[in-house]
């Protein structure tokens, strides 16, 4: 092919840019994102525990940050991320046994884990606020 001019490479058809988000793919990416977020919150947990071990002044600073509205919002997000990741993890464990692969099961378990995460987050905060108010 000595006469051929340099061939233009074939274009790649779009993938994530056009593919419709579905419960399947959305919950998969949510599982990853919540995993990353929880790693970040684990660091904050260590900071909180270290401050508690250091003394009252250090703890007061960390507590001040956590009690601010930004801190509370992030804590709420962390709770929700925790339960999403937990329920998603349980869903994956069931799949690993070879069960729950019918399309109906995939969708029922998917929406159930979302609903369960909302309920568990609300319950956790209700319990926390109840204890704090006493």
């Amino acid at each position, binding site marked *: 092919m000595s006469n051929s001019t340099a061939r233009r490479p074939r*274009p*790649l058809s779009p993938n994530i840019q056009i593919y419709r988000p*579905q419960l399947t793919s959305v919950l998969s990416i949510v599982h990853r994102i919540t995993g990353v977020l929880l790693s970040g919150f684990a660091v904050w947990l260590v900071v909180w525990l270290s401050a508690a071990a250091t003394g009252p002044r250090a703890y007061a600073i960390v507590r001040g940050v956590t009690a601010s509205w930004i801190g509370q919002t992030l804590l709420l997000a962390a709770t929700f991320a925790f339960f999403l990741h937990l329920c998603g993890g349980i869903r994956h464990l069931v799949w690993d046994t070879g069960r729950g692969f019918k399309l109906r099961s995939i*969708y029922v378990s998917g929406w159930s884990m979302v609903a369960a995460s909302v309920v568990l987050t609300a319950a956790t905060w209700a319990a926390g606020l109840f204890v704090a108010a006493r």
Partner: protein
Amino acid sequence: MIVTSSDQVSRSTLFKRFPIPKTLGVAADSRIGQGKTWPAPVGAVRVKSFEIYRYDPEAGENPRVETFEVDLDGCGPTVLDALFWIKNTVDPTLTFRRSCREGICGSCSMNIDGVNWLACTRFISDLASPARIYPLANMRIIKDLVPDLTHLFAQYAMIEPWLHSKAPAPESERLQSPEERGKLDGYYECILCFCCTSGCPSHWWNGDRFLGPAVLLQANRWLVDSRDEAKEERLDSLEDPFRLYRCHTILNCTRTCPKGLNPGEAIAEVKKMMIERQG
């Protein structure tokens, strides 16, 4: 929405596509430009717009999206009929694969309204307005809606999709009981349209080494065949961080299979065999 069958068309999704920039991670020569609009013939009453991905390898230009206004009264009910109507009456250069027009050959698989499906078994009445027709996602494009499937068939060849027998060939047919034959149900029906593999995000990012749902479903089809005598060798070949274990159970495959098969479940069966043989 609870989806119970892969042929259900998603209507209630909040986002039609992921909220990311359209050019994110797209190489310069794969970016899609704006093409022209081909108006409906004069006097057409029921008109529907189709936005179709076009790429001409001889033009030396980037792919583009052209809009075709289709006269529904002059056209059959399926997406394939609309493509034929365009090719016959508007632009004869529109290029796509097709053969059986009844969901058996797997040639006309493409991305329709963001989901991979066969053009011949998707009804125009189920499409959004305007309808969006792209080639199978994440493929090298030969022309318009025709993807280069060389890599996928090479991956298929890698699992050696034929009967492996160590014993001498018998005098007559190799017999199976109805139960043994039943184990192939849900796998032999695969038409290799590659809707699942092209819809798998894991194959998008690691398709060079991950075999993808279509090929792994076929791998399972040979693993469960009572006549095959190479189960251990087949599992040895699959036991690899990429070939099998890049499947993260996203399950876009099961959602999109135009034959209603379950590649996700087939892959889970293979993973189970891997654990079981470790004792």
